[in-house]
């Protein structure tokens, strides 16, 4: 923060009043980033749609191998984490910093729980010799090969977003603790929340498309 390089940045100070603050502008920037995320996942969803029309039967067979209970549990976990995130922002807006931090802890806990469930799921698939390029999988129909290819890449990319989310939530917690994010200047947490809800949104579509086809 305080780069004492030279006096090139005179406005650089810990006095918050000196730092320009534009909440709406910040949120617009965040939304534009989220749009790139939507289109990024969108490309994969389009690939999914095309292959579903091509290999409907294979997709059903593949989907039957997935555990609806695990996927459903993870859906509930992520939705609940979205709730705690939204509540944390609401708490910060009301000036209740301890509550806000507690709710962020809960969000982190759910994020980890999601990853644990996910790793059990992937582990079970690996035990059944189902992973991209496995001899067992290549023996199956083309539809199943493509289904699992998309399953691993899309849920894997989604899980990467969850992992990244964990880091940004920890970042937000530290900034709140340091007083850099305050009830009056809370757009940083707003934006972290927007990112987290987007991760939830992607899962809302991944769940039915992969688990509920059979």
């Amino acid at each position: 923060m305080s780069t004492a390089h030279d006096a090139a940045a005179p406005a650089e100070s810990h006095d918050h009043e000196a730092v320009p603050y534009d909440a709406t502008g910040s949120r617009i920037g965040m939304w534009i980033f989220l749009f790139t995320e939507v289109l990024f996942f969108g490309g994969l969803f389009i690939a999914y749609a095309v292959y579903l029309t091509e290999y409907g039967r294979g997709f059903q067979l593949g989907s039957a191998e997935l555990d609806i209970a695990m996927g459903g549990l993870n859906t509930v976990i992520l939705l609940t984490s979205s709730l705690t995130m939204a509540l944390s922002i609401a708490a910060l807006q009301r000036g209740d910093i301890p509550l806000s931090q507690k709710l962020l802890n809960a969000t982190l806990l759910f994020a980890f729980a999601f990853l644990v469930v996910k790793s059990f799921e992937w582990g079970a698939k690996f035990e059944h010799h189902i992973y991209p390029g496995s001899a067992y999988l290549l023996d199956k129909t083309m539809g199943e090969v493509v289904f699992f290819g998309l399953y691993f890449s899309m849920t894997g990319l989604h899980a990467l977003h969850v992992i990244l989310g964990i880091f940004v939530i920890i970042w937000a917690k530290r900034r709140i603790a340091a007083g850099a994010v305050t009830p009056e200047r809370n757009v940083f947490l707003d934006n972290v929340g927007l990112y987290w809800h987007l991760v939830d949104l992607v899962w809302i579509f991944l769940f039915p498309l992969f688990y509920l086809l059979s």
Partner: protein
Amino acid sequence: MTSHDTEEEVHLVPYRTYVNVWLVLIVLTGVTVAASVANLKQMAIFTALLVATAKSTLVLLYFMHLRYENKLFAYMFIAVIATFAIFLGLTFADYSFRGV
């Protein structure tokens, strides 16, 4: 302390609203799972996507505040979804005439 020049109407959403939205989201998840387990055949994927769309709308409007935000945000979002729809439509237009 005087108010900031960029001070905006911060819409304080009651905690209850978020909890209610979450409850509806959980119920909707139950509905899709039930519809799938009950094996409603071809309707399953269609219903599932319809419910997923309803769930995302709730997340966008309430958790992501689009409902309380400047209208600009909603318009931008619609533009992105339209872009996605065009992308999807053109892909299928191409794919359907490949004559594989």
